[in-house]
């Protein structure tokens, strides 16, 4: 009872999905549409691991009834990268080792990509304010802030997906 079809634009393509009333966008993305890059964290709007963009603005998909995005444009981590290679902020995350366990990373990347879209050269205060709702328990934020600053300064390599940053396994550094 009460199920309805909701349609919206997801990472550049139109989707239609039959949802139960007030299912969260986050659960629909993961369980029904297979977009598992958006993580389920606290489901309280307190951790940011479920961050997605709605019409280009970051929102917590765990607090968003999917009916509320009817006709709107939703972008998840799956839609952040260009067709080939990585977005500069993704490359910067790799180069600055801006993750440890990786659970917060999709939300962080979606958020910081948007930050740079809004503010190509963000101030330290703007970075801090933007990150304030996304919890990282591993890195202590330092390398994430470094990654944002590097991406803003255009100071990442433009290498594509294959550019690993692993130390040489032989141990010769």
């Amino acid at each position, binding site marked *: 009872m009460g199920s309805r079809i909701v349609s919206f634009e997801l990472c550049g393509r139109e989707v239609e999905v039959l949802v139960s009333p007030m299912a969260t966008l986050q659960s629909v993305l993961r369980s029904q549409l297979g977009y598992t890059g958006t993580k389920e964290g606290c489901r309280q709007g307190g951790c940011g691991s479920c961050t997605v963009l709605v019409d280009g603005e970051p929102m917590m998909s765990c607090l968003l009834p999917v009916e509320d995005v009817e006709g709107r444009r939703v972008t998840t981590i799956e839609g952040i990268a260009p067709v080939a290679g990585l977005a500069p902020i993704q490359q910067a995350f790799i180069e600055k080792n801006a993750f440890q366990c990786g659970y917060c990373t999709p939300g962080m990347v979606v958020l910081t990509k948007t930050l740079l879209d809004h503010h190509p050269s963000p101030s330290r205060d703007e970075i801090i304010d933007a990150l304030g709702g996304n919890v990282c328990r591993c890195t202590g934020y*330092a390398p994430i802030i470094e990654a944002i600053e590097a991406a803003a300064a255009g100071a990442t390599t433009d290498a594509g997906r294959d550019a690993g940053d692993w130390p040489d*396994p032989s141990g010769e550094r």
Partner: protein
Amino acid sequence: MAKLRGTGIAAVNYPTGMNLGGDPSQALIHATTSGSFVVALSSTDLGQGLRTVIGQIAAETLGVAADEVVIDTADTDTGPHCMGTFASRATHRVGNAVKAAAEEARTALLEVAALELNAPVGGLVLDGFGNVLVAGDPGRCVRVAEVASKAQFEYGRTISGRGAYMKPKSPVDPETGAMDPDSTEAHACTIAEVEVDTETGQVAVLGIRSAYEVGRQVNPALVRGQIVGGAWMGMSHALYETTEPYYPNPDHKPKDFSEYVMPGPAELPEIDCVVLEVPSSTGPYGVKGVGEMTANSPIPAIVNAIYHACGVRVDDLPVTPEKILRGLEAKWATESAAAAGGR
């Protein structure tokens, strides 16, 4: 409004792994037909990077590229035994087991390659890029992938290895109390700089600078990540986090991220570290553990810095602004009483 600055120092010796009733980890490795190697473990990666460093140790020992190694930690019911991921033991214990398994698998690989190249096993080397070469005769070589395929389709052999490592139980000497509880110890020293607002009791951590001696680093980027993240977490334990509230009523325990107080990006101090490498005699390639210890020395260093800044010694964590204000009030009361008594 007074803002007082102080500096504190603390050091830690951190044992890698635990004594337990014997502390084993085991590993199995086999080559697939395509020449990649699967390392089967029950040691769980809980986000610390175990799969990365274990993969590096396996690749280094096997003589293949790191991306040719698949770490399978799928199932603790069916995988080789491991005591678990704790006490910073995995790189050392699991690494030793994987290294042993990789050595056996490498020998099995070279035995088949020797048949292909018609050369003695002892005269073969792996170049780390997927080739087995005859030493001194680089024209004679064969791809690892080809060896792996032929082992299974032509020779009917497995390319595999078994590895086990165990820290034996060390009983306490009833006379002296002596025992050997750990295999190796890592060391660190932290200097913290803080600023205390005497009106709010808030502490701002300005800097956390540390020196770490962690044995041989398998992955320096991960080591640095652990140290920087651990410094932040140590600061968080020192000043913010608690599941037991400091107020009388346990009902006030935090239930979600809006109430569980921890620092955000604005509270990030300047974090700096240097890493020294003194290889351990027992770890694979000389490793020690660097996980848990990184949150240790920042805590007493910060608490000492608070004492240095404002003369308030708090000995239960976290050091909340309220504890500092109450400590300052008690201190001023004592001082004014002493001043009155001295008159």
